């Protein structure tokens, strides 16, 4: 639909003559803090609400799960391959371990890997992209060459090499995912910085006395944020998938229960006992969907110019 032009506030203009004695005007509704406004707008969108609900659900599971199932998820809880609803709500896997306990405990590991890997992606990508975009020149060229070098490496293979070299621990898995995923974020950040750097309000900030750190962090970055935040949110989803992929190939941390590990260990029995693979698979699917919905809604909510859409 179309934007309604300028919801301006004519009452804010004081009388034209004299200009220094603005007459009394009806008090305007005082807008809430920016964070609160964004949150309201986010929750008002169906996709945003769905994303928030899904993510909150998984976070609750991740924190409450180990208390509901205080035992070790690796413990045998019943007969192997018992289907959902017989002894245990979601059945058992090939070793007789409780699938529900695995899902709840695994949520913690999977979400942690996703969040931290995305954070690493974001920090490296934004730092390199921002410096390359703001300063340009030789520094920019050098940084983009490095980015291209990382981008042409096959990501899964590179992550597998890192995990094989430094050990199959959750920390190494997380770091590896972060290290292989940042180049697209860096390119996006650089493009946004190049675009915004030339706008008048950046010049205006320079004329007002702003230096490079202030311009990068306080002026350009907030305006470059929407697409970067969306990319980072989507990176959480990618990282979750990545962790699943590594575990599926047997390169996850075998000592920490995660959804990927469950799929990887049960994959040989997928046709005989579908629930052992399908349930953790569904968990990954829904988590990634929730993160994507959230990222999309966040993109719309954070942009005040889209607010007045009819």
């Amino acid at each position, binding site marked *: 639909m179309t934007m309604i032009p300028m919801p301006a*506030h004519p009452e804010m203009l004081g009388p034209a003559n004299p*200009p220094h004695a603005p007459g009394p005007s009806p008090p*305007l509704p005082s807008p809430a803090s920016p964070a609160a406004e964004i949150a309201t707008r986010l929750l008002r969108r169906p996709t945003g609400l769905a994303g928030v609900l899904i993510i909150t659900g998984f976070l609750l599971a991740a924190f409450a799960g180990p208390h509901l199932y205080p035992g070790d998820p690796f413990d045998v809880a019943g007969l192997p391959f018992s289907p959902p609803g017989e002894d245990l709500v979601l059945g058992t896997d090939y070793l007789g371990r409780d699938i529900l306990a695995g899902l709840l405990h695994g949520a913690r590991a999977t979400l942690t890997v996703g969040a931290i890997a995305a954070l690493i992606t974001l920090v490296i990508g934004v730092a390199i992209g921002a410096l390359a975009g703001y300063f340009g020149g030789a520094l920019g060229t050098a940084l983009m060459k490095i980015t291209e070098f990382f981008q042409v490496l096959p990501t899964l293979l590179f992550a597998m090499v890192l995990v094989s070299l430094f050990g199959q621990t959750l920390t190494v898995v997380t770091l590896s995912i972060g290290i292989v995923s940042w180049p697209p974020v860096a390119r996006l950040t650089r493009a946004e910085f190049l675009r915004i750097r030339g706008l008048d309000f950046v*010049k*205006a*900030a320079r*004329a*007002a006395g702003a230096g490079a750190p202030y311009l990068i962090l306080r002026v350009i970055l907030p305006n470059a944020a929407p697409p970067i935040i969306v990319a980072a949110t989507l990176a959480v989803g990618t990282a979750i998938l990545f962790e699943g992929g590594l575990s599926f190939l047997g390169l996850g941390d075998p000592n920490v229960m995660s959804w990927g590990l469950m799929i990887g260990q049960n994959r040989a029995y997928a046709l005989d006992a579908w629930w052992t693979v399908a349930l953790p698979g569904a968990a990954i699917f829904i988590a990634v969907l929730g993160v994507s919905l959230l990222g999309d809604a966040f993109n719309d909510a954070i942009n005040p110019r889209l607010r007045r859409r009819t």
Partner: protein
Amino acid sequence: MSAPALLEVDGLFVHFEASRRPKPAVVHAVDGVSFRIPRGTTFGIVGESGSGKSTTAQAVMRLVPTTAGAIRLDGRNIIDLNGVALHEVRKSLQMIFQDPFSSLDPRRRAGNLIAEPIRLLEHRSKDETAARVDELLAAVGLQPSAASLFPHQFSGGQRQRLCIARALATAPALIVCDEAVSALDVAIQAQILNLLLRLQAERGLAYLFISHDLGVVQHMCDEIAVMYLGQIIEQAPNSAFFSRPHHPYTWSLMTAALPAGPLRQSLKKSYLATGEPPSPINPPNGCRFASRCPFVVTRCREEAPELVAIGTGHWVACHRHDEIDPPVFA
């Protein structure tokens, strides 16, 4: 004329490289421009796109690197200043841009935007800054409640008022107005021009007023310079400039800007320039206006004319300035 003016621009050059390959191309954006602006006065620069008027404004603001020349504020050359010294200069030198939609950071509230120069350039307490923001909003005719709104919640004219409040924040002596009203509707333009005039009378501000609109310039400026392809080709005090302009390019600009009517119709035939300005990349050697000038002779294409004085403060750069009588505009 002996005491230093507030701003003195002396032999300013701004060149930049457009490309290195296949052959070097240098844009002569500003090519040897000099002028002075006394305290409390308005100096206008008119010209078409590519004339270098905006680049001159940005060079004065130290927003683009200069190739050569001096820019003196109160007698002190600011061209090589950096760090703290440049901060001191920025307090007395502020700018208003053409497009109030793009010159305000869309993610900040009005109050924050107005306070930004104060925060960056002066050390004041939060309360002092807030009081100053209220005072500035009132000075530009906005309600104090406007401080908590985002730029997109204002109309174009109100946004330009915000830009003016922001420019006033550090009590500058000179404000550079780069086409500050050309993006506004005519009724709003009058409001903003009046605001600028009132602020000048109250605060003794000087303006460097960049515009393409001769009517606005005549109304606002004490002294006017016409730029063409990076150079000043005529400069004069307001009355001399508008009563007896001497450069054929000025004639062309004035003919185009005349109110519709028989006078404009008759002057258009002989005085309106044909074509469009050539590119400022590697400009020609002779007079830069030669390619469009109705009065061009061989000498114009071979030899660049110097600015010569033809009256008090009236300068013109034309080989034929004493051969051809200026048209009668009124």
